[in-house]
């Protein structure tokens, strides 16, 4: 056997295992964070600190029947949850956890993530439509408008980073931020004094957009439970729902890792002490914590408020940022 093939296959298996375990961990983390924010303790029965709770839930979900509602498009109904998971797993392929730990170093890694992540919305759309449920259809329509609206500022801010670093290779983007936190893209005092103005704003826009893209509160209009019951996965039971759920957490992880890679120096630590992968995970989980913190603190926005935020605020600002970036790269 060719060692390269073994490496790739091994990596794919590892990535899938990581996605599943990580999502389970994140579910547990979400519940613990929510619990402590709400002055209760969260899960505590299954395993130490309730850490095995998500596995118990997973087993429960797997043993449940996948009920296909009457009048549903059976094939699309069953394909949709898989379509959520597949892109999520594929995105992990290119994310560099550390200098050595990356499945594939692709020259256009950033583009790959955007391209594959755009399939995600397709899954929501098909799932919502195939359910033959009005709430699901409304939710799918919302999810699409939301994704289209937020993909634009997200791409534009990503382009500012690409312009600044001059590459789309995620490894190289991180390598370019080596040498102390003053070289990180979010506050690149060490590299380009002009970009200090642009980058924090870019980071904020990118972070907000990644939250909106992953349908996280306060932007979870797609599954706004007080309006649309459960949105596009209203009709899903058992593991069908479970996959949507896991996919959401996988996407949250991807969104936060992208933020870390593009702006917060990836695996580069502010000082030595720990090996790269630790720093990377530390930063990512901190961002994920922030995402959860927001979810349990803020009420949900309205749909038009959300679109207004994107079209009237984020897109103009990010375009302006783009122009500034071009100018600063030339000037400094």
């Amino acid at each position, binding site marked *: 056997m060719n060692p390269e093939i073994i490496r790739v296959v091994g990596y794919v298996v590892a990535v899938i295992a990581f996605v599943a375990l990580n999502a389970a961990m994140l579910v547990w983390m979400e519940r613990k964070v929510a619990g402590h924010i709400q002055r209760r303790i969260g899960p505590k029965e299954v395993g130490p600190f309730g850490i095995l709770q998500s596995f118990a839930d997973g087993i429960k979900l797997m043993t449940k029947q996948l009920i296909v509602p009457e009048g549903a498009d059976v094939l699309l109904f069953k394909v949709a949850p898989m379509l959520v998971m597949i892109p999520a797993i594929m995105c992990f392929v290119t994310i560099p956890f550390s200098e050595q730990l990356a499945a594939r170093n692709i020259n256009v890694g950033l583009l790959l993530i955007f391209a594959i992540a755009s399939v995600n919305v397709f899954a929501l759309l098909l799932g919502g439509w195939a359910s033959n449920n009005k709430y699901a259809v409304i939710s799918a329509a919302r999810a699409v408008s939301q994704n289209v609206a937020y993909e634009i500022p997200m791409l534009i801010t990503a382009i500012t980073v690409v312009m600044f670093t001059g590459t789309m290779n995620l490894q190289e983007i991180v390598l370019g931020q080596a040498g102390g936190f003053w070289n990180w893209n979010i506050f690149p005092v060490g590299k380009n004094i002009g970009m200090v103005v642009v980058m924090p704003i870019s980071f904020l826009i990118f972070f907000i957009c990644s939250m909106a893209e992953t349908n996280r509160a306060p932007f979870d209009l797609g599954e706004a439970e007080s309006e649309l019951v459960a949105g596009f996965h209203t009709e899903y039971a058992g593991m069908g729902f479970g996959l949507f759920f896991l996919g959401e957490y996988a996407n949250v992880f991807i969104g936060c890792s992208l933020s870390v890679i593009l702006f917060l120096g990836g695996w580069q630590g502010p000082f030595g002490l720990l090996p790269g992968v630790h720093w990377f995970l530390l930063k990512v989980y901190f961002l994920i914590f922030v995402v959860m913190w927001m979810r349990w603190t803020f009420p949900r926005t*309205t749909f038009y408020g959300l679109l207004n935020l994107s079209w009237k605020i984020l897109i103009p600002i990010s375009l302006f940022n783009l122009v500034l970036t071009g100018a600063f790269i030339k000037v400094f």
Partner: protein
Amino acid sequence: MSEMACDKHKETFVLNMGPQHPATHGVLRVKLVMDGEYIVEAEPVLGYIHRMHEKMGENRTWAQFMPNMGRLDYLGALSYNHGYAAAVERAAGIAVPERAEYIRVMTVELNRISSHLLWMGAYLLDLGGFTPLLYAFDDREKILDMLERVTGSRLTYCYFRFGGLYNDVDDQFLAEAKGFVARLRSRLPMYHTLVTKNVILMQRLKGIGVIDADMCRRYGVTGPVARGSGLNYDVRKNEPYSVYPQFDFDVPVYTEGDSMARYMVRMDEIEQSLRIVEQAIDGLPDGPVMAEKVPKIVKPPKGDYYHAVEAARGSFGVRLVSNGTNTPYRMKLRSPTYSNLSLLAEVAKGVTVADAVAFMGSLDLVIPEIDR
């Protein structure tokens, strides 16, 4: 309705919100004719937990009907106790000892606070904020514990009797209530920083579901909803009953008429209720909690009588018709949210589902009370 659904040119469709839906808080169904996300027509469909309380009233004695009061508005049951007891006392000419009235007011106001707290949490839940619910329940739990000690139940109270109360309060209750007033006072600023000042909340509530004073008049809207529309109407002030005239409290009024105004009215009412509770504890007179000359079997003289009280959701009125026997001849229960909900059809026209949910939540619906 069905014609509209089939009208291809308008491209509307019918969406059933409820009877099982997270935003209807119980079994209410709202039939929405939608044009995309916008509501063309909203029609509440009631009666899913209709139990015909008014007929029950005609089939049991005056005293036996008292437990039904806890089943109407299960969140503010003591106001309903008060309304019914006061109506029968008015009909039968029974005088209530002052201590009993003080305790009535005290418990009713505590119950009102617990109702408003629960509303606040549930409303934020409607708006997608989960956390305030847990905080509100934390405080509400203290009230439930206190009331459980004196009334014997946590939710469906049957505490008042004609001419007084079932049970006197003890010193521990008074001490606890005093402690609670201080505790909630210190926590209210936290609610305001956590919830009221939130940008998203303001964006969702300001200017949403505007009701003007004329609309209130046409639909007979009362309670916090009317007070949010600039109407200074509170039965406790406008039509004083019990010992309310002896207390010093304000009626919060906001003129905007939107969901934010209704939210603010309820939050301010919590403060005012705390003031009343505090004054009631301080000025609690000694004496019996039951009138001495109450007949075993009450038989109000012939005639009809009306009594309204300010419940947590608005003016609750009891219209009694007595034929001089030991059972009521007719018992009309005027519940506030029944009237308040009836304007949904007018307000919800042309708004999005999300705003309709925000509006419906701000009405503070309790479905068993609407359906009766």
